[in-house]
């Protein structure tokens, strides 16, 4: 148990030193990045150790806070979420070094490194905490540290706006969690997780579940609580966004998973809720991702889609628990947890890729890029692996997770009665459509950015990426491939983490799902066969072309010789048919200054797709709250003596109330 604490200590120490050494950019960077990397590696080792060997350890120290205790523990569930937290922190820190140093003449590197390490420490603490107060403190540390990272570029108005949205959203989530823990404490008499588990009456469980879904769902990014994601991720530096999307949104999901272990057995409507939210988030997220022109906004919306997929897996799991079908329960939860790991890997990779693009080409507007794979072949290959993995294609890791969720849904559909089966069918249909739309989205993002010819001067003259910016991408790309090829082993490691969720002995679980996990071995066989066939075909092609004319020419333009890079299909034109088709769900605004007449002037066209939920849902709601509360504004007159009077009145009122209570 000491190792994770040491890792957190190294985070905090490195961050503090970086802050103190803020005047000296290199020393500050060495300390901040060093702390993040060393702490991350130590923590990753501890987490992998706990995950692979299924060990649990706990520690309890006295802490003078009402209802609080410094109680931490690591079990397979915590360890599974600690892996992306520590791993991504260490990897993203590598990209952070050149990224922050490049701007060191404009602003100090000290505070960003301090908050980055503080966020990492908060994330790790949330995953380890076993007491409600400690959990909430760590949660707030994580949320506030990340707020300061989102607003690094606070000189820009849209960044401040994004930061404000994030701050409000995260605190609305926290408010819901506060209510949840308060209710739990009332029932259990303590805020220690051990005491809460088993002491929550069944009739209170539903409310707690809903509070958890709202509170944790806000952090994870369930639609419609997702509005802050597409604002905050593009505003934050890419290496921070990689940790926020890859680790922090996962920690939100962790909270939901952990809460499920504390509550009594699930009712069927919980499954309905999560599957409904999952399908909604998945489709809403991927449709909006598809339409975005900003690479990081696209990735942010795709994050909404992916937590939706996790929620669908959890829903299938809950359905299994509620209908006493252990196979389904294990498959659903295992698929969800596997997808958590996978999403952390490929989304971290893609955000780091966005960081490289932004640093080298100076823009992340997809339609202004193109042809980058010639300038950075290795980065492009890694991004291709990440993009193919997020589409869920074999033989990469994304397929294995979705395979388990699909298997769970297909089995539900086959064995359970009508209402549950209808739910499973909705999952199958939605997953299939989401998979197809993810293919649209990521062929667009990869194809338009990296392939073809450069669309602008900026893309044509993109500098070579700093090796330290690109290096962590290769580690993550290798992880995508290796986890995909060893998916059956990885599932074996995940299964112990499923045990507390389904309330079974970890040793009994592998036998239950053998029939559904063994196919992953066959999938790996198929992958090996695929690799062998590709190699064979490559040899055949090489032999055929040996000694023949292989020449280079220009792209076939159907006889037209004057083709320019501007005539290529752009990202907007690539997804235009899909956007038109899904127009009822997407509010896309187009403006066209058309070229007409005999001597036409300049024409222009622009298209933008905004998420309507912020404007249609939250803005009116907040405006209404604002109007109502404005009536109380007279209370705050700005005169100090009136405020002192309020304090005096409050104390008198409390005294009267106290005396009244004690007299009874």
């Amino acid at each position, binding site marked *: 148990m000491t190792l994770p604490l040491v890792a957190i200590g190294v985070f905090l120490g490195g961050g503090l030193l970086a802050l103190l050494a803020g005047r000296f950019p290199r020393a500050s960077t060495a300390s901040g990045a060093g702390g993040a990397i060393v702490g991350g590696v130590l923590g990753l080792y501890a987490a992998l150790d706990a995950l692979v060997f299924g060990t649990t350890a706990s520690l309890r120290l006295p802490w003078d806070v009402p209802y609080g205790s410094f109680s931490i523990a690591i079990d397979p569930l915590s360890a599974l979420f600690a892996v992306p937290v520590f791993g991504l922190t260490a990897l993203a820190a590598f990209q952070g070094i050149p990224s922050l140093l490049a701007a060191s003449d404009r602003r100090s590197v000290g505070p960003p490194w301090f908050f980055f390490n503080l966020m990492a420490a908060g994330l790790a603490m949330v995953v380890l905490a076993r007491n409600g107060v400690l959990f909430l403190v760590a949660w707030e540390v994580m949320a506030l540290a990340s707020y300061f990272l989102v607003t690094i570029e606070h000189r820009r108005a849209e960044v401040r706006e994004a930061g404000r949205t994030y701050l409000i959203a995260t605190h609305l989530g926290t408010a819901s969690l506060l209510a949840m823990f308060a209710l739990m404490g009332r029932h259990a008499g303590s805020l220690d997780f051990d005491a809460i588990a088993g002491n929550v009456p069944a009739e209170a469980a539903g409310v707690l579940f809903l509070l958890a879904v709202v509170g944790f769902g806000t952090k994870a990014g369930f639609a419609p609580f997702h509005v802050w994601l597409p604002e905050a991720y593009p505003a934050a530096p890419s290496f921070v966004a990689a940790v926020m999307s890859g680790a922090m949104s996962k920690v939100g999901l962790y909270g939901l998973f952990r809460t499920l272990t504390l509550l009594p057995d699930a009712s069927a409507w919980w499954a309905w809720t999560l599957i409904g939210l999952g399908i909604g988030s998945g489709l809403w997220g991927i449709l909006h991702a598809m339409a975005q022109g900003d690479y990081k906004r696209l990735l942010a919306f795709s994050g909404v889609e992916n937590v939706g997929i996790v929620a669908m897996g959890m829903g299938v799991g809950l359905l299994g628990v509620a209908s006493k079908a252990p196979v389904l329960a294990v498959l659903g939860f295992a698929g969800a947890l596997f997808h958590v790991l996978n999403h952390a890997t490929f989304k971290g990779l893609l955000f780091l890729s966005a960081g490289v693009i932004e640093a080298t080409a100076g823009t992340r507007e997809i339609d202004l890029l193109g042809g980058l794979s010639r300038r950075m072949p290795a980065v492009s290959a890694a991004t291709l692996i990440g993009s193919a993995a997020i589409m869920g294609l074999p033989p990469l890791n994304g397929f294995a997770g979705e395979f388990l969720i699909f*298997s769970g849904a297909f089995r539900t559909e086959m064995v359970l009665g009508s209402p549950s089966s209808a739910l499973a069918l909705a999952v199958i249909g939605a997953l299939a459509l989401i998979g197809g739309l993810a*293919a649209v989205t990521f062929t667009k993002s990869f*194809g338009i950015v990296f*392939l*073809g010819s450069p669309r602008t001067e900026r893309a044509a003259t993109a500098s070579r990426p700093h090796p330290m910016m690109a290096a962590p991408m290769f580690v993550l790309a290798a992880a995508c491939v290796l986890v995909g090829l060893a998916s059956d082993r990885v599932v074996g490691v995940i299964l112990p983490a499923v045990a507390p969720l389904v309330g079974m002995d970890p040793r009994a679980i592998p036998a239950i799902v053998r029939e559904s996990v063994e196919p992953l071995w066959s999938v790996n066989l198929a992958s090996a066969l695929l690799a062998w*066939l590709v190699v064979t075909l490559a040899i055949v092609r090489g032999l055929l072309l040996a000694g023949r004319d292989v020449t280079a*020419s220009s792209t076939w333009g159907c006889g037209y010789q004057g083709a320019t890079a501007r005539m290529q299909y752009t990202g907007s034109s690539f997804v*235009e048919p899909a956007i038109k088709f899904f127009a009822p769900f997407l509010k896309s605004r187009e403006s066209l200054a058309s070229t007409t007449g005999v001597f036409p002037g300049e024409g222009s066209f622009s298209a933008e797709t905004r998420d309507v939920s912020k404007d249609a849902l939250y803005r009116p709601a907040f405006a209404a709250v604002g109007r109502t509360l404005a009536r109380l504004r007279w209370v705050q007159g700005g005169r100090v003596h009136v405020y002192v009077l309020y304090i005096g009145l409050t104390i008198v009122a409390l005294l009267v109330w106290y005396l009244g209570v004690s007299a009874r």
Partner: protein
Amino acid sequence: MAGGLFMTLAKSLIHPILALIFAPLMLGVIGRTKAILAGREGPPLAQPYHDLRKLLGKGAVYSRTTTWIFRAGPMIGLASTIVAVLLVPFGSCPAPLAFPGDLILFAYLLGLARLCTVLAALDTGSAFEGMGASREVLFSALAEPALLLGLAAVARETRSLSLSGMQAAQTLSAWSGAWLPLSLVAVALGVVLLSENSRIPVDDPNTHLELTMIHEVMVLDHGGPDLAFILYGAALKMWALAALLIGTVLPIRVGLPYTWPVDVALSLASMLGIAVGVGVVESTMARLRMSRVPQLLIFATTLSTLALVFEFGGLIR
């Protein structure tokens, strides 16, 4: 026992071998059918084989815009289509690779092949190929639910999650009990077959340079062995989807232990029947307007869903 195992293995290898040999013949049959219906003599049945041989014997010209992705695309695409063929049962022979959930792998392998074609098309930087890629990804995204929901209906009916298991359970007597949902699925998969293979009414494989094109326009820049790989891969994909249709949904087989050669022959005949059917559709229908194609695919998804409703409602049994 060892002999039995050997026999099973040998039987399971029959389909891949047949597919690898006869897949281009389906294209030949389609072409011939269209020619006859149009009152022409038409190319010989073996024309696709001649095309492939000619292409394999050529050199190659690559656009200066392209990268390794353009060169790797056809190889990975063909390889993943071949692996997809290995998952499909034929006649009464199970597939060499069969496991619960192989239908998911099947769908996603076709997705991998599609990704290769689409990225190779975008790699050329040509507006035409970008246009084809854009349409391909949208239509296949809409075809995916039709395919998987249709197979979900068959899975429910046959209580099996593997394509080979579905084929084993799909006997004539079982079929007669659930003919309505299964025929709905058959129509849905038929639409998926036409759309995924870029045939009329979704796409017209004959008009290389028209802007109506989807698949053909994406491979404009490929030549030589690369184009041969693509053409062969397209033929195999057609074969795989047709074999999926007759293997899992239609019970065209005797199904007794010793009649498997008859079953293989029956299946081969049905494959040719499907090719003739595609040729007839191409000769008698016009291509749909691009904006109508999604409606056709949603129609297929609706049929699959309806099949499931019947499955659960037990209206038929």
